[in-house]
């Protein structure tokens, strides 16, 4: 019955290996950092502008295909624009919008969550009702409505993404704050005479760092995909700004002859989101964060 795993003998041996095993979070973080660097260093890596049209080199395949060349390592699109350059600059666009959108929505959501969680009562009821409403209305429809109102400039996308995403953070942060509030040390601090501000800054925030790290890491991909999705549908980032989503969308008509037009940016996007997902999952296990909400 209980001898399924005699671990007495060789356990230290395995522990040793687990100890030096390069862990998932680190490997993925390094890879992700690599992708970010590729985007940042795009002007150094490639000298072809992402918008340079070369009608003589339309739909060139990547280098490993017959007819491909090192000049266009990832091939070109239907207008003869360099896929590598467009992908690298696309990373910049995606990361830029996603990061700013995330920061915006996180500030909004986290403050609302903390207020709802700490103040409680009717303020909490009201704020949670608003988040409920926002969760109910399909995100994409709200985004589209916002775009109809405000147009497709990049700042609009950032603001809209921020306005769409905050409710998730608000809800989770509120849950975490409520859980914290149940813990005696918050009350102890209150009984010692600490002000609400002091409690929030000295006791609540530090204990939110772990869950917030996990939440933000896990939700970065979805923010990034929001921009990519809108651009894919043609209502997000407008040309000539290179955008991974838009590249996938416009390559759709050339799938049969030039799959790389959609394929390359797809691979980039999936790598980014997958890495974020793996890092987030790993962090959650590591920091032992439970996210209910």
């Amino acid at each position, binding site marked *: 019955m209980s001898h399924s795993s005699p671990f007495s003998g060789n356990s230290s041996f395995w522990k040793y290996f687990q100890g030096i095993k390069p862990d998932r979070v680190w490997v993925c973080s390094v890879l992700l950092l690599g992708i970010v660097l590729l985007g940042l260093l795009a002007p150094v890596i490639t000298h072809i502008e992402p918008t340079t049209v070369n009608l003589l080199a339309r739909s060139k395949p990547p280098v490993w295909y017959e007819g491909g060349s090192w000049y266009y390592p990832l091939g070109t699109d239907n207008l003869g624009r360099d896929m590598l350059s467009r992908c690298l600059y696309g990373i910049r666009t995606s990361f830029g919008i996603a990061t700013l959108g995330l920061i915006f929505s996180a500030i909004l959501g986290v403050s609302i969550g903390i207020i709802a969680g700490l103040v409680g*009562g*009717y303020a*909490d*009821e009201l704020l949670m*009702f608003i988040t409920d409403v926002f969760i109910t209305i399909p995100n994409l429809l709200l985004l589209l409505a916002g775009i109809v109102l405000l147009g497709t400039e990049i700042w609009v996308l950032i603001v809209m993404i921020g306005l769409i995403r905050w409710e998730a953070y608000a809800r989770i942060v509120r849950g975490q704050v409520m859980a914290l509030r*149940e*813990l*005696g*040390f918050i*009350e*102890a*601090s*209150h*009984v*010692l*005479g*600490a002000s609400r501000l*002091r409690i929030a800054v*000295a*006791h609540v925030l*530090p*204990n939110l760092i772990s869950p917030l790290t996990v939440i933000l890491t896990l939700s970065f991909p979805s923010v990034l995909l929001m921009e990519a999705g809108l651009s894919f549908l043609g209502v997000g980032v407008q040309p000539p700004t290179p955008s991974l989503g838009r590249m996938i969308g416009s390559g759709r008509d050339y799938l049969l002859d030039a799959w790389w037009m959609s394929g390359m940016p797809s691979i980039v996007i999936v790598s980014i989101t997958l890495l974020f997902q793996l890092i987030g999952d790993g962090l959650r296990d590591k920091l032992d964060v439970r996210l209910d909400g």
Partner: protein
Amino acid sequence: MKSIVELSDVKVSYSGGLLHRAPKVDALRGVSIRINRGERHGLVGESGSGKSTLGRVILGLVRPSHGSVSVAGFNPFSLSRSEKLEFRRRVQLVFQDSVAAFNPRLTIGKSLGEGLKIHNICKSSQRPDRIAMLLEAVGLPQEFSDRFPHQVSGGQRQRVNIARALSVEPDVLIADEPVSALDVSIQAEVLDLFEDLQQEFNLTTLFISHDLNVIHEASDYLWVLKNGEIVEKGGTKQIFSGPEHEYTNLLLASLPGQGLETVC
């Protein structure tokens, strides 16, 4: 002697929020209590009797729907900004032991220092000495200052808990089930410590517990709470030897191991 805690006809009822309508729960239904300076009081009751709520009313954490509260000369529910701070210094709480009573990210020293900082009890340069003194008062070595709450045992943590409450030199100490999570042998130590400190610091204490044996040791005056009402009050010894209310009688009769003393 003038009373330092006085509650008269205090009623508390809990209800749910706006959208989920919870039924009203009457936690306290007209409780009056008087505690004089320097006395040791005990409050005993079973779960759901409202004993914790009563403690929290005295601390100003739960607002009663009816009745008047006066603690250390203040009404905890109408305090000016400066009064609030003074009230918080004079009335303290010892929690039931748990890791949760301490911020896991702060060392024990930092946790002990919080009250000193808030109330400017001493200069910041003197704080480490002060913390060492507090630790010493509860029988712990100075090194504990650098440990984290999860690195010490339950009994030790409970001593720190008491030290934290004492750090601001309170007059009134409410102890809400302070030993019920501890093993018997450690319970005894903490109870003894509690008694010593009560005398040393001239504290007025209200000891809340469900355990009659514990309350017997920690109090001279006893209030028996049942369903939000005081059903019996008086000297602890008198009540133990001759309970008047049938509920108190039942409580005493339910104590396990009645004949154990005769064997030992």
